[in-house]
């Protein structure tokens, strides 16, 4: 999956527009991650036992005021609900709700939107419905995006550093070291990564708290994700080694490490940055896969993967496919955004 895509190119103008769209998608995800607490109307773990698996709340308009009606359970077993239109609660912007820390520092209870009335039995607004414990899926999705993005980005950073180091040394040292390191890289690229990841995962206890789970994911990414970066770095280093400014630096007696890190590395950094960006969805998906399989981040903590386990409830999937699969759609958009950027960067 690399340079051979570059020949399919649009005109420059269209490429730029496509890339802007990609960046927009990424920016949206970044905003969702940073402002998860502000955007989420409810705490991701807050349960509302009265409405398990409730469908997405319908928003009505009374004049210009958006209102919602509380839900009544029609059939507890089949989880069908209907709206109680005799009661109406207005939706408001900038309401007070549960307290959280903005940017992880400022404690506040301000939220972008919420139900205006503060009485105890005010209806809840679940933009994407509620899960089987009555937790707001929209709020959980925001926190899940935050967790997945943080872990994937740090993972890319760690794996890239490992890959750049291995590839740089391999390309610069040449001979035996090169053969050995590139052999390992080729093996790594060919092996069934997800099975290896699961193998590594098997070495650790099944249930982990959130920080341990994040650290474990990072370790797994560092162990299994460096190969593509290593191969790219090696190729770039090899081509730069012959250039005059590198030869000149070597002739001046500059140490090998200094040549590699001060003269070669800055020149290949833009290409490496693109590759790092392309790795982002790979790692995001690895996290999604592990959590989906029940060996990544565990409940009650939300992650894109463990939210998708709700899809195994086929009845629910049939009646609310969009809500249940919203984490999958988020993953899809993110991957598409990154691909669009990567494709225009390559041309």
């Amino acid at each position, binding site marked *: *999956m690399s340079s*051979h*895509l570059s*020949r*399919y190119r649009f005109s420059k103008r269209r490429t730029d527009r496509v890339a802007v769209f990609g960046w927009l998608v990424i920016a949206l995800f970044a905003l969702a991650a940073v402002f998860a607490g502000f955007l989420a109307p409810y705490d991701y773990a807050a349960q509302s036992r009265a409405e398990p698996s409730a469908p997405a709340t319908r928003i009505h308009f009374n004049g210009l005021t958006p209102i919602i009606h509380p839900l009544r359970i029609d059939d507890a077993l089949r989880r069908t609900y209907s709206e109680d239109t005799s009661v109406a609660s207005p939706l408001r912007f900038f309401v007070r709700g549960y307290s959280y820390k903005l940017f992880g520092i400022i404690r506040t209870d301000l939220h972008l939107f919420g139900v205006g009335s503060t009485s105890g039995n005010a209806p809840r607004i679940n933009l994407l419905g509620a899960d089987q414990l009555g937790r707001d899926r929209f709020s959980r999705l925001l926190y899940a995006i935050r967790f997945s993005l943080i872990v994937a980005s740090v993972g890319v950073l760690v794996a890239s550093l490992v890959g750049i180091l291995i590839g740089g040394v391999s390309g610069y040292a040449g001979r035996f070291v090169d053969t050995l390191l590139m*052999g*390992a890289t080729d*093996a790594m*690229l*060919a*092996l*069934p*990564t*997800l*099975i*290896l990841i*699961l*193998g*590594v*995962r*098997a*070495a*650790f*206890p*099944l249930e982990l708290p959130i920080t341990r789970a994040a650290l474990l994911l990072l370790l797994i990414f560092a162990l299994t994700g460096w190969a593509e970066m290593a191969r790219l770095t090696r190729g770039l280093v090899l081509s730069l080694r012959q250039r005059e400014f590198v030869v000149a630096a070597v002739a001046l007696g500059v140490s090998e490490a200094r040549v590699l890190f001060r003269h070669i590395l800055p020149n290949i950094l833009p290409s490496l940055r693109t590759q790092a960006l392309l790795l982002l*969805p790979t790692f995001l*998906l690895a996290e*999604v*896969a592990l959590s*989906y*399989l*029940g*060996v990544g981040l565990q409940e009650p903590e939300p992650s894109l993967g463990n939210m*998708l386990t709700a*899809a195994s409830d*086929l009845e629910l*999937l*049939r009646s609310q*496919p969009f809500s249940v*699969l919203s984490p*999958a*759609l988020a*993953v*899809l958009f993110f*991957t*598409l955004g*990154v*691909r*669009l950027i990567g*494709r225009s960067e390559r041309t």
Partner: protein
Amino acid sequence: MMILVVSAVTFALLGFAGGDALTELRNNPQISEQTIERLRHVYGLDQPLPIRYWRWLSSAVTGDLGESTYFRVPVSALVWMRSVSTFQLGTAAFAIALALAVPLSLVGVRYNSTTIAAVIDLLILVTASTPRIVLALFALVISVRFASSAIDSSSAVLFWLAALALSAPLISVFLAQLHGELQRTMREDFIKLARAKGLSESAVIFRHAIRPALNPVLTIVGLSLGGVLGGSVIVESVLGRQGLGTLMVSAVRARDLPLVMGIVLFTSTAVWLGNALGELLQAVNDKRIRDLGF
């Protein structure tokens, strides 16, 4: 060699992390510490790591991968049994990808049309950016929408939906590689010569362009086997198929270390064989490689 290193590293990781199938027994008040120690001795778990690895390896080369601590049956039998379903699914995925990529890129090059190039371009983008897990979930939605009753995991429709989900990244890689190679080859001098001889465009492509363009694609086919095996974990789990992928998941959840090791060994061997097969096909296709000593 590669397989040796992979198995050793996995074994070491599993060993160093501590904990095995017997750790769970500690939580059971009815089983005394002595019993566990005796069991550890019976299974040879009290031995140091290198000795355990050596024992595992020497029996592995004879085809004995030990006994699954969770399923209580020999690992090799279990892995063989489950690999059949995964093999079928993987073959179907490869077939779908090739059946799409080969005709499309041939037609695209033959008529040199911008419309087909745009279609190929779009298809590459869509298949490259739709993750297997998303596709598999979509396939699940489709099947619950159209199935009247509970879904039947052995149905043919579900099988092909699963194969389609598994094949998406393959379609993008094969298509990009084959179309790209063909376009590059068509600019070569020997193609100009073939055209100058007065051959029809189709004859130029089939007699002169395909062979040289095929070799890089064969490499890719061999290399994508690992991705397919990894992807089968997801596709099988989502669509409820009993295969190697789901076996691996249950092994990890039950911390069934012999089974985990067995599957890792089996899949790495399969990948290695796949790459060797790819190289062999290249030699069949290209006389220059054959002359190098095949």
